């Protein structure tokens, strides 16, 4: 497949990907660093390159509410937000998932207030981790674009029918011009395909009820059906990713394994800091240190069995969280990973790093590797450590 090499910001790349899905409706409210993405999309519409109906609402709560109404009516629908915008959507984020509406959302990861900060961390996404969405994370503009193409196929698959959020790091990816390969419009459309809603709100031939009162009689059964969708989602995510690999040559799964085959030491993380770690891992590999990286792509559904399989037998594992869980046992990714590793007898420790966009640099990655070496040699380290902060 002939693909065009372009330099685009992450926001522009995702706007293109969404346009290629020919969505019927987009409802959004601007918030930094997501604004540029919807700005680009609005350009497509204004220039006649997209026939998407843009609903410009007065808040993110309304954006998600409009997306829910639109998706329930049978329209392919997306939205996008960041940080406090996602927080304001809170109650309706759950409703989108409960109604099994395959809405796609770009979540351009940004710290939550206060104090006010516009830069990247993952606390926005983590706040919604139990809401019933599929969470895909991206390392760079290429992965943001690719995830935003695949998201539709995953969300709309009849075994899944769950909303999907495509996460990419605010500014670090959203506002950085990066080289990426883009599919031609017709190839992307052929891959994504037309959306066939199973039920629509406005079909008198097949009347349905959406969002009724659901008390002690059936609520639990409906939640059980959501849990069941999560059971089926991993196989569909892999199937869609494999088809995407056939088309593009870019292979995706639940995670990317970087120099992991013979690695004694493993770093586990999400998002853009993976690239920085890869450069430093190469430096340590040249010195003979057997270190590798596991970059998670799907945080929900969380691939626990896969992690247990991959992390078993290692000498030391560490988990890097770009968000804190105040009063919890480490960051969300650490808690999930350590739980997945139950019984493996592999030492695991965690870091909190990069809050509010604090630069994750080459030195921090080197510190992480050197600490892994110490732990593998029998040294002690706290469960939770802070990285790159003034103490």
């Amino acid at each position, binding site marked *: 497949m002939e693909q065009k*090499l*372009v*330099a685009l*910001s992450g926001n522009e790349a995702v706007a293109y990907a969404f346009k290629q899905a020919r969505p019927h409706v987009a409802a959004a409210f601007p918030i930094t660093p997501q604004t540029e993405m919807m700005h680009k999309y609005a350009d497509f519409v204004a220039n006649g390159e997209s026939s998407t109906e843009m609903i410009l609402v007065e808040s993110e709560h309304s954006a998600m509410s409009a997306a829910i109404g639109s998706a329930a009516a049978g329209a392919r629908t997306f939205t996008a937000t960041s940080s406090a915008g996602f927080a304001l959507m809170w109650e309706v984020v759950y409703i989108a998932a409960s109604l099994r509406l395959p809405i796609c959302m770009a979540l351009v990861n940004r710290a939550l207030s206060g104090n006010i900060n*516009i*830069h990247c961390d993952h606390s926005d996404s983590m706040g919604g981790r139990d809401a019933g969405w599929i969470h895909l994370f991206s390392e*760079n503009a290429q992965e943001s674009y690719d995830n935003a193409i695949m998201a539709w196929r995953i969300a709309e698959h009849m075994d899944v029918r769950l909303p999907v959020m495509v996460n990419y*790091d605010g*500014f*670090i*990816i959203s*506002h*950085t*011009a*990066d*080289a990426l390969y883009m599919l031609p419009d017709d190839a992307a459309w052929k891959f994504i395909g037309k959306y066939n809603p199973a039920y629509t709100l406005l079909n008198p031939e097949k009347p349905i009820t959406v969002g009724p009162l659901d008390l002690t009689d059936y609520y639990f059964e409906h939640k059980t059906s959501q849990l069941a969708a999560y059971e089926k989602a991993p196989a569909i995510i892999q199937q869609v990713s494999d088809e995407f690999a056939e088309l593009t040559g870019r292979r995706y799964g639940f995670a990317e394994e970087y120099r992991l085959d013979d690695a004694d030491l493993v770093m586990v993380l999400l998002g*853009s*800091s*993976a*690239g*920085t770690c*890869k*450069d430093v891992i*190469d430096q340590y590999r040249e010195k003979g240190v057997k270190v590798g990286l596991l970059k998670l792509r799907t945080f929900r559904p969380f691939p626990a069995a896969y992690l247990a399989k991959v992390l078993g037998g290692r000498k030391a594992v560490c988990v890097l969280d770009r968000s804190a869980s105040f009063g919890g046992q480490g960051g969300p990714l650490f808690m999930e990973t350590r739980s997945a590793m139950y019984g493996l007898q592999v030492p695991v420790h965690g870091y909190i790093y990069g809050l509010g966009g604090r*630069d*994750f*640099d*080459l030195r921090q990655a080197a510190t992480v590797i050197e600490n892994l070496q110490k732990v593998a040699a029998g040294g002690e380290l706290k469960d939770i450590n802070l990285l790159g902060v003034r103490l």
Partner: protein
Amino acid sequence: MSGKMVEIRWHARGGQGAKTAAMFVAEAVLTKGKFGQGFPEYGPERRGAPMRGFTRISDVPIRRHCMIENPGIVIVLDSSLLDSPAAGVTAGTSKDTVFLVNTTDSPAAVAKKLNVKGAKVHTVDATGIALETIGRPIPNMPMVGALLAVDDLLTVEELKSALVDQLGSKFSQVVIDGNLAAVDRANKELVSA
């Protein structure tokens, strides 16, 4: 693998076009089969406030997504930043760093101000050139033209072709011609120590 990577740090004031230049160079090198990454440092964005931009260029895909701490090239769009320690123009630099400064001062005078031992300093009156060619004191594109005189990332013709692509849909022919002339002049008028 990292391969050979050129790392450029841009120092400017809001409104001088450093963000555009940092991202434009990253895009323009794609035509040469190279990979580029360009990004600004976002803070309180306002006209006149000191800001930094970053560009990486490499023969292989660029994976790291951190700030540039040890730039090979430092480009200063506003010479008043040389007097501001907070701007950090010399931070992380070494004797191998190339400085490219928009000023009417001589490279020797700038070198003295920078106080970096053995620094390779080049100067160009990018603001003057911009005023005469574009008609506005926006020194970003002349500085890109001057950059090509200190590093052969692209030929001037390749850059100009990328510039036409970039500006083509947004600006009038007069503005495009002004920018092309600015690139040419700055490339030729660079003064080296």
